[in-house]
C-alpha cells in the first residue's frame, strides 16, 4: 500500500511541475515494494505484450487505440518500456488503495526486460515486430537478444503473433512450439534491392547456411529460404498489401479490410499490419480496428511535424536499419533542407556509437538538396566525422553541441532560405527536442495572436 501511495504521489508531484511521469514513479514505488508488478498482474485478466527491435512504440499505441474502443485499458506511453515504465502505467490506472480500473493491458516491453516480467503477468498474446541490431552494448549480441525473447516466451502460455517476413521471428516461432500466427506482406510487393544494406538474420538459424532471398522489403525482412534445410518464410495468416496510404489486410475466409494508414512509410505499414493482426487474434472486428487507426496520433518523435518558421520534421534514430529508413524519408523529400543530427551516448541511447558507421549516411551525400548538416549532442563530433567519411563536403558540416542551439540555427537559416528542416536524434535527446519545438509552436501562436489583437 505504501508503495502505491508513494508512487502516485511522486507521479502527481512530477505532473504538477510539468515533468514527464512515465518511468520515475514506478522506479520509486518498486523500491518500496519490489513485488508490485506481480500484485498488479493478479488483478488483470489479459495482457498483450509487444516487443522486438523497431516499431514497438507505434505498434503498441495502434493496438491500444483499437482495443480501447471497447474497454478501458492500461498501456505504457512514450516508449517507457522497462519495468519502472510498466509499473508507472499501472499506477496511473490504479486507485489509492491499489485497485486497477482495467482488465486488459497492452504493454510495450524492452527485449532485455521481457524475461524479468514474463511470469508476473497473465500474458495471452505476444507480438514480436522484428529483431534487428539495436544497442548491442546492452544485450551483448544479436543472438543474445533472440535467446532473451525465447526465455521470456517459455515462461508464458501465450500465443504468438510474429512477423513472418523476418527470419529471426520465424526462428522464434519454430522453437516456441505453440500456437503462432504470422503476418507478412504480399509477395508481389517485395523488391530486389540495389543498395547494400545490413542484413542481420541472413544466415539460417537452424543449420547455419546462408539464406537465399527472392526479394526484400527492408533490412532482413523478405522472401527468404534456406537452400540447405527446410527453413522457409511461412505463408502468412495475415497478409498485408501496402499501397502508399492504405494497407489491405487479407485473412482466410474473412472479408478484406482496407485500412487507412495514420503514419507514412513502409516500416509503419508493418506496424499497422502487426497491430491489426494482433487485434484480429484477440477477436476484434472491423469497426474498432478502423476507429483505432483513425483516433491514433503518432507518438513523440515518429515523423512528428512542427511549424516554427520553417517546417520541422522530428524523428528518432537508434539503430542502422531504422536510421536508414529515416534517411530515405529525408532524401525522398524534394525540398531544399537543413538537417540536424543529435547523438547522445547515455544508457538509453546505447553507449556504443559504432552503429553510426553501419547506417547509410552516404545517401545524404548523394542528395544535392541537403544544404547543411549540423551535428549535435554529446557525440556531435563523432557524428561529424561519420559525415566526413560518408563523402559529405566538410564545409556543409557544422557542430553545435547544444541541441536547442543547433535547432535554432537550422530553423533560422532554413526559414530565410524557405527550406525544410529535418531533426534526427537518439532517444535521450528526443523528448527535450519535442518539448523545445512544442514550446516554439506555442510562442509563435501567441505572438501571432498578440499581433492580431493589436491591429484590430
Amino acid at each position, binding site marked *: 500500500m505504501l508503495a502505491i501511495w508513494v508512487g502516485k504521489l511522486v507521479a502527481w508531484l512530477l505532473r504538477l511541475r510539468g515533468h514527464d511521469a512515465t518511468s520515475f514513479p514506478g522506479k520509486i514505488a518498486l523500491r518500496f515494494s519490489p513485488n508490485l508488478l506481480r500484485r498488479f498482474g493478479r488483478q488483470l485478466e489479459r495482457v498483450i505484450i509487444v516487443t522486438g527491435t523497431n516499431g514497438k512504440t507505434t505498434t503498441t499505441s495502434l493496438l491500444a487505440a483499437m482495443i480501447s474502443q471497447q474497454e478501458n485499458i492500461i498501456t505504457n506511453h512514450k516508449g517507457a518500456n522497462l519495468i519502472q515504465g510498466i509499473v508507472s502505467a499501472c499506477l496511473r490506472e490504479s486507485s489509492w488503495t491499489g485497485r486497477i480500473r482495467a482488465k486488459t493491458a497492452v504493454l510495450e516491453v524492452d527485449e532485455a526486460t521481457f524475461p524479468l516480467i514474463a511470469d508476473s503477468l497473465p500474458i495471452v498474446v505476444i507480438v514480436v515486430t522484428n529483431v534487428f541490431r539495436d544497442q*548491442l*552494448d546492452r544485450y*551483448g*549480441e*544479436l*543472438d543474445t537478444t533472440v535467446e532473451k525473447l525465447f526465455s521470456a516466451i517459455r515462461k508464458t502460455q501465450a500465443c504468438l503473433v510474429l512477423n513472418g517476413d523476418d527470419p529471426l521471428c520465424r526462428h522464434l516461432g519454430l522453437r516456441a512450439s505453440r500456437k503462432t500466427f504470422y503476418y507478412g506482406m504480399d509477395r508481389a510487393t517485395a523488391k530486389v534491392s540495389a543498395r547494400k544494406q*545490413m542484413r542481420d538474420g*541472413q*544466415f539460417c*538459424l537452424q543449420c*547455419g547456411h*546462408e539464406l537465399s532471398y527472392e526479394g526484400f522489403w527492408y533490412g532482413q525482412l523478405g522472401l527468404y529460404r534456406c537452400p540447405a534445410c527446410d527453413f522457409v518464410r511461412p505463408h502468412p495468416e495475415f497478409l498485408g498489401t501496402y499501397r502508399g496510404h492504405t494497407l489491405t489486410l487479407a485473412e482466410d475466409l474473412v472479408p478484406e479490410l482496407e485500412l487507412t494508414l495514420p503514419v507514412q512509410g513502409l516500416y509503419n505499414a508493418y506496424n499497422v499490419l502487426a497491430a491489426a493482426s494482433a487485434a484480429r487474434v484477440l477477436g476484434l472486428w472491423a469497426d474498432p480496428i478502423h476507429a483505432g487507426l483513425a483516433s491514433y496520433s503518432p507518438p513523440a518523435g515518429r515523423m512528428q511535424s512542427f511549424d516554427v518558421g520553417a517546417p520541422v520534421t522530428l524523428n528518432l534514430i537508434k539503430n542502422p536499419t531504422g536510421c536508414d529508413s529515416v534517411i530515405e524519408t529525408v532524401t525522398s523529400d524534394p525540398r531544399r533542407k537543413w538537417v540536424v543530427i543529435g547523438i547522445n*551516448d547515455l544508457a538509453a541511447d546505447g*553507449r*556504443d*556509437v*559504432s*552503429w*553510426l*558507421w*553501419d547506417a547509410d549516411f552516404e545517401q545524404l551525400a548523394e542528395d544535392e538538396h541537403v544544404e547543411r548538416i549540423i551535428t549535435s549532442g*554529446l*557525440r*556531435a*563530433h*563523432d557524428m*561529424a*566525422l*561519420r559525415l*566526413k*567519411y*560518408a*563523402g559529405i563536403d*566538410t564545409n556543409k558540416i557544422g*557542430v553545435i553541441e547544444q541541441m536547442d542551439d543547433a535547432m535554432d540555427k537550422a530553423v533560422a537559416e532554413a526559414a530565410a532560405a524557405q527550406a525544410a528542416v529535418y531533426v534526427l536524434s537518439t532517444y535521450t535527446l528526443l523528448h527535450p527536442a519535442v518539448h523545445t519545438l512544442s514550446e516554439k509552436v506555442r510562442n509563435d501562436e501567441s505572438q501571432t495572436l498578440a499581433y492580431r489583437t493589436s491591429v484590430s
Partner: protein
Amino acid sequence: MSHRPLRIGHLFPDLLNLYADRGNILTLTQRLQWRGHDVIVDEITHADTPRFGAYDLVLLGGGSDREQMLVAGYLANHRTELRHAVEDGLPLLAICGGYQLLGAYYQVPSGEKIPGLELIDMVTNYSAGQPRLIGNVAILTEEAGVVMGFENHGGRTIHQGSPLGKVIHGHGNDGVSGLEGIRYRNVWGTYIHGPLLPKNPRLADAILRTMLQYAGIDDTLDPLDDRMEEEARRSFVKLRMPEVEAALG
C-alpha cells in the same frame, strides 16, 4: 599516382560485420584516395576462395559466436595459405571476433571450443558466469600514441607476444593484465571497435604505410587535414575518459 590499384581483402563481410567494420574499410579507402591512390575492396564471402597472395591488406572483423563458428569452419581449409602469407609480411587487421580467431581457440561458456587459425600462439576463454567486458577504452601504443574506442567482449585473451598497447582506461585483453591487442609481424589484433580507425588516424596511417611498403609502392604518406578527427578524439576523451587527456599531449 600511376601504379596498380591497391587491393584490400575484406574477409566474410556477410558474417563478421557486428561492429561497424564498414567504418574501418571506409577510413582506409578514403585516406588512400585523398592521397591519390586507387584502391579496390574485394569482399570475400564464404562462397569465394580467398587468394591471400593477391591482397595488400586483409581485414577480419567481428561477429557473434555463432557466426564466428561458421567463419572458423570456412577458413579451416585456407589456414596454411594464410599462415604463409602472414609470415611473408601480409598486413592483417583483425578486430574483436577476428582477433580471437588469430589464436589456437576460443572457448565459449558452454565449454565448446571454436578452433582458431593458429597464426599466433594465443588462446581465448569465456567461462560461464564471467561478465562481458564492455565500455569505452583507451590504450597507449608505441606506433600511434593513444588509441581509443569501445570494447564489448566476453572472451579473455591471453598471449605472451607484444600487445598493441597498454590500457589507460577500460579492460583490454583479459581485464587484468593491463594489456590490449597484439602486434605480430604485420598483424594488428585488437578488441577496440567504435569503429577502430576513424578516430585513430595515426594508426590508420601506420597500417597504410605498412600496406604500401608491402605492395612495393614508395609513398610515406603526406599528412591530411585531421582537425575533425582530433576534435572527435579530444571531445570523446574529455567527456568519457578525462584521465586519458594527459596522454593525448
